[in-house]
């Protein structure tokens, strides 16, 4: 087990390092940088000299390898550098916004699971019937509608039928808990539906597999009521793959809220990324992408370890 853990950890670090190189190179091969955007965006006439001086100040004129080594040594000390636009530390920019994104993601996961479990079970038990088909349509529809459009429709419906518009500025939990929650619930509903589709389909197929197992037949032939067979014997085992999928989807959500945050005007890390991309703020983009990848890999790693603990064959 220790060996498996260490080799997985090694792979984890290599992958993370690879993502760092990848995103660094990707941003550097493209023409244009933050200085161009900052000084020339309004069509302003700025001399090459001024631009060069600003580049030198931000360290953009140094060779690529120097920049990379610099960034890496900073990372080793958990220093992500400074945003090239606001010149505040990247860590500070992210940490002030990560909270709201995490809250939406957690709430979406809760909503997703609450929808997915009953739907997945119902469709597995009625395999092939009209109910199964209806659940399939509901799930595929959830995956097909663009989240930003669903968000707009939700806002529109609330405005037209309830005359309610979500607050435009961020409301803190400490100021007004209900106002804070009302900001989160709409995006969470939209994203939750999407999540529920993936989870419900996974649960359906894993439950169908489990229902064909010998021990389920044994439980049935013992004369146990069907309800107990399903809830106590089958569902427990069928939930594991569904929860894995839920975990991985959740891990993706941190970066996946990019579009949703835009619609609901939430000041989270997704919106920050769109801003950073628009401003060619390299250090901030690097920091964000690395954080998304890190988060995803941590969840992945945790799932792997959990499986190894539960199933010795995998070690």
């Amino acid at each position, binding site marked *: 087990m220790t060996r498996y853990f260490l080799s997985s950890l090694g*792979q984890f670090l290599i992958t993370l390092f690879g993502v760092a190189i990848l995103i660094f190179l990707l941003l550097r091969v493209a023409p244009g940088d933050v200085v161009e955007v900052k000084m020339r965006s309004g069509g302003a006439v700025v001399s090459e000299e001024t631009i060069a001086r600003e580049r030198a100040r931000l360290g953009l004129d140094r060779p690529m390898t120097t920049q990379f080594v610099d960034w890496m040594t900073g990372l080793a000390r958990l220093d992500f550098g400074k945003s090239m636009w606001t010149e505040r530390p990247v860590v500070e920019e992210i940490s002030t916004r990560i909270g709201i994104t995490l809250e939406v993601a957690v709430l979406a996961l809760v909503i997703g699971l609450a929808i997915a479990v009953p739907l997945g079970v119902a469709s597995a038990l009625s395999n092939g019937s009209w109910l199964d088909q209806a659940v399939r349509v509901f799930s595929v529809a959830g995956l097909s509608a663009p989240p930003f459009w669903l968000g707009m429709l939700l806002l529109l419906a609330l405005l037209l039928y309830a005359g309610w518009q979500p607050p435009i500025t961020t409301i803190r939990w400490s100021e007004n808990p209900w106002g804070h929650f009302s900001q989160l619930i709409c995006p969470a509903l939209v994203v939750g539906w999407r999540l529920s589709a993936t989870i419900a389909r996974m649960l359906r*197929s894993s439950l169908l597999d489990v229902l064909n197992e010998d021990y389920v037949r044994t439980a049935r032939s013992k004369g146990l009521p069907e309800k107990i067979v399903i809830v106590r014997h089958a569902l427990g085992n069928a939930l594991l793959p569904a929860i894995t999928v839920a975990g991985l989807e959740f891990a993706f959500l941190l970066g996946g809220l990019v579009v949703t945050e835009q619609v609901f005007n939430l000041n989270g890390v997704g919106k920050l990324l769109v801003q950073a991309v628009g401003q060619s703020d390299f250090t901030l983009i690097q920091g964000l992408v690395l954080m998304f990848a890190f988060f995803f890999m941590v969840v992945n790693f945790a799932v792997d370890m959990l499986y190894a603990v539960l199933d010795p064959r995998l070690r």
Partner: protein
Amino acid sequence: MSDASTNLHLTARRTFGKTFRRFARRQPLGAAGAVLIVVFIICGLFAPWVAPYDPFDTDFMAVLEAPSRAHWFGTDSFGRDVLSRIIHGSRSALALGVTASLLGAAIGGLIGVMAAYYGGRFDMIVQRLIDMILSIPVIVLALVLAAVLGKREIGALDLNLVLAIAIPNAPRAARIIRSAALSVCRMPYIEAARTAGFTDARIILGHIAPNLSAPALVLVTAFVAQAILMESSLSFLGVGIVEPAPSWGLMLSGVAVSLFAEAPWTVIFPGLAISVTVFAFSLLGDALRDELDPKSRS
């Protein structure tokens, strides 16, 4: 002679009809998706004749008009006919969606087959690279790629946008095709081809790849759905298709809450077009997977 050829033609046609009817009976939802896709493709191909107005025609006397007999889906803030813009938008959505997913599946599929065929160190390196790309959320990678690559148009198609959508999907294709190719690579006839001295390229393209057409078909269909959704998201975020080109995602971007309360049709219909198209491809992809993949058949 002519009799035989007409007969042959008829048989072929009947077989297709029969196959489709059998498919429709077993997978009614998938068949519905296929029909919808055909309708959308026809609409896109014949857009100038199907659309009632020119999609670029502004009419400042008819700004934000509600749906009427003259404008079925109303007009937008420039007085352009929403229905015509949606019909013309289906061109870019389908063209981009199909090219991006074919390209992504081709790149990823080739890498996947090679990883399965060569195995060893090459396979290991490919796996790590796939892990790296897969750990970045799709939309994040696509957004950064689209912004970094900029625009490079070939005809009406923005090649860099196609790349930005294809690249994040390629590793997924590689992983799926690799696992499907592993079992094919172990077949005796591959060994035989190797013994016969065929080149690797000939074995991979001529002997392994044709056996992977089923998973590839499922993959591409599902990718088209993802790619259309991705294009609309990128256009919505302002790094995809730009004004005044008609694009579904673009039609939804920059609309303030106050505006869409006043003119909800400018929001409802383009979104509906995206949803229905993606829905159709997803249903077809699902049905194809059920039909072609023996493992998922329940």
